[in-house]
């Protein structure tokens, strides 16, 4: 009787071994999980509405110096050289809006040995576009008070004219310095960290 029991166990083990020697059938239930990604899959899409401008131009600029020629007298057509230092802060925003604030902006020149000067306070608002080499702007709002002096004489005027005003300058912007050139003058700006600096 003992012998018979051992034999049945051995045969059972053998059958189990044979069963194990066969590959399992593959019936995994494949599942997919819906993703909730914090990013999207996409391919060839570009961002529309991006304004094209050189990064250097955006920011807050303080007038370092400028030199220009203007017709100072209404009855004298001669364009007289003037120069100035400081007194204007210009901000060029990335949305294409700009502003300039005049605070005791004084320009000086001479005519026939007599000193000339202008002092401007006020502000301008404008829209601008730029490339690496040009800056275009168009005023949307101007509010300036101009005091002009010729010797001991002086004249005060206000300037609210915006119609048809604007300009085109060639620029060179390298880091913290931007130079504008136009037909009658040159302006040098230095960057401040008031806007656009990280």
């Amino acid at each position, binding site marked *: 009787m003992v012998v018979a029991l051992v034999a049945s166990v051995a045969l059972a083990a053998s059958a189990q071994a044979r069963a194990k020697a066969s590959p399992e059938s593959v*019936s995994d239930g494949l599942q997919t999980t819906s993703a909730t990604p914090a990013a999207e899959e996409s391919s060839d899409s570009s961002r529309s509405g991006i304004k094209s401008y050189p990064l250097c131009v955006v920011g807050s600029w303080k007038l370092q110096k400028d030199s220009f020629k203007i017709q100072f007298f209404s009855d004298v057509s001669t364009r007289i050289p003037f120069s100035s230092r400081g007194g204007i802060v210009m901000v060029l925003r990335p949305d294409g809006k700009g502003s300039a604030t005049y605070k005791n902006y004084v320009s000086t020149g001479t005519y026939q040995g007599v000193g000339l000067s202008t002092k401007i306070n006020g502000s301008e608002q404008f829209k601008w576009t730029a490339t690496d080499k040009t800056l275009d702007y168009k005023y949307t709002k101007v509010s300036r008070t101009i005091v002009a002096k010729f010797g001991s004489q002086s004249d005060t005027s206000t300037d609210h004219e915006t119609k048809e005003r604007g300009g085109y300058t060639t620029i060179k912007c390298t880091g913290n310095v931007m130079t504008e050139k136009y037909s009658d003058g040159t302006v040098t700006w230095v960057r401040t960290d008031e806007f656009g600096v990280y």
Partner: protein
Amino acid sequence: MSRRYGRLAGAAAVVVATTLAPAGVAAADTPTNHAAAVAQPSVVYIEVHWRGWVRDTKTGEVFGGRTGYELTTRCSGFFAAPDGTIVAPAHCVDPGKDGVLPLFHAKVIDELAAAGRISTMDKGRKKLAATTALEGAKAKSPVIRDIFVQSGPAVVPASADDAMLAKVVSLTARNAGDVAILQVTEGRQPALEVASAPSAGTSVVLIGYPASSRTSSALLPSVTEGNLGGGIEVGELSGGVVVDRQGRVVGLVGASTEGGTTPAGGPKLAILPTTAITDQLDSADVDAGPGAADRNYRHGLDKFYDGYYSAAIKYFDATIAAIPGHGLANEFRAEAIDLRAKNGDATDWTTIGMFTAAGLIVVALLVWLVIGLLRRRRRDQEAPARMDEPVVGEPSGV
């Protein structure tokens, strides 16, 4: 995904002097070879292509131009379930501050610095982090992220022609675990088991794809031997998979909990514990672990290394039927056919012994039964007549 392993090229670029693929008699059944052969088909190369724009939420300025900034992150990972569930380090796929966001910021800072708009790098990084958002092609849309997954020899750079596309199911950020669950949906995949509590000093094998940006038509994973608990160098194998000698996952190379970054901007790496992996799998409700095809493959490997090529081929056939793209199963099968033709199958002394023993036992049982029957018959013939039977003899006298 129609690549095929080159002849014997399923072998990893082995750091230690071993080969994974069956190279004739050179395919010694060392613990490293065996563990790597089990695990390697489940180890994947992940390449993430990012495209995004950085928008200053205060000024509205958008950095990145019309086409945006492009970045690529690379790491390894592994299939944790036959349904295509992948475990990978989160920092590889995370668009947030613990992922690629600092890399996008670095690109912005480079541009701003060139334009004179950075005061100091440190201030710049902090201000960008505080005031900007990473976006896709539309304002407030998610950054564009394409996750390409490849197993076996990988094509670099990846594309949809050669790779599967994955989605992120869930992730725990770099500083809180650094594990992400990804999902591909291209049929059954070879999956690994995650060991519960590996002990320090366990002999392990680290398998992972190098984070190389060099173009390659067949980037292979490296295989490194070592010991768990400081006895293995993780290098820059982000997402490298650490397996024990049974091919079970005992760790994943992810961001070190000590923090810090590498010169390339990535996190310093360390081996993440399996609890971080299992927690993430559980939270994503993943039915993790190998499937029948994986068990067939492992049986096939066992048979192959024992020299039972016919049996191995049978198991590899079953594996390939379930997972046609199983590169190593195909390679081992081809080699098993060659070796069987050359050497024949090994003699299965265990099975032979078992059947012989069973046969002997059956014979012994029959002999015992026959002897018993004969003895019984003899006893019956020699037994005296019973007393109640009528006696036939001489009549009594009168």
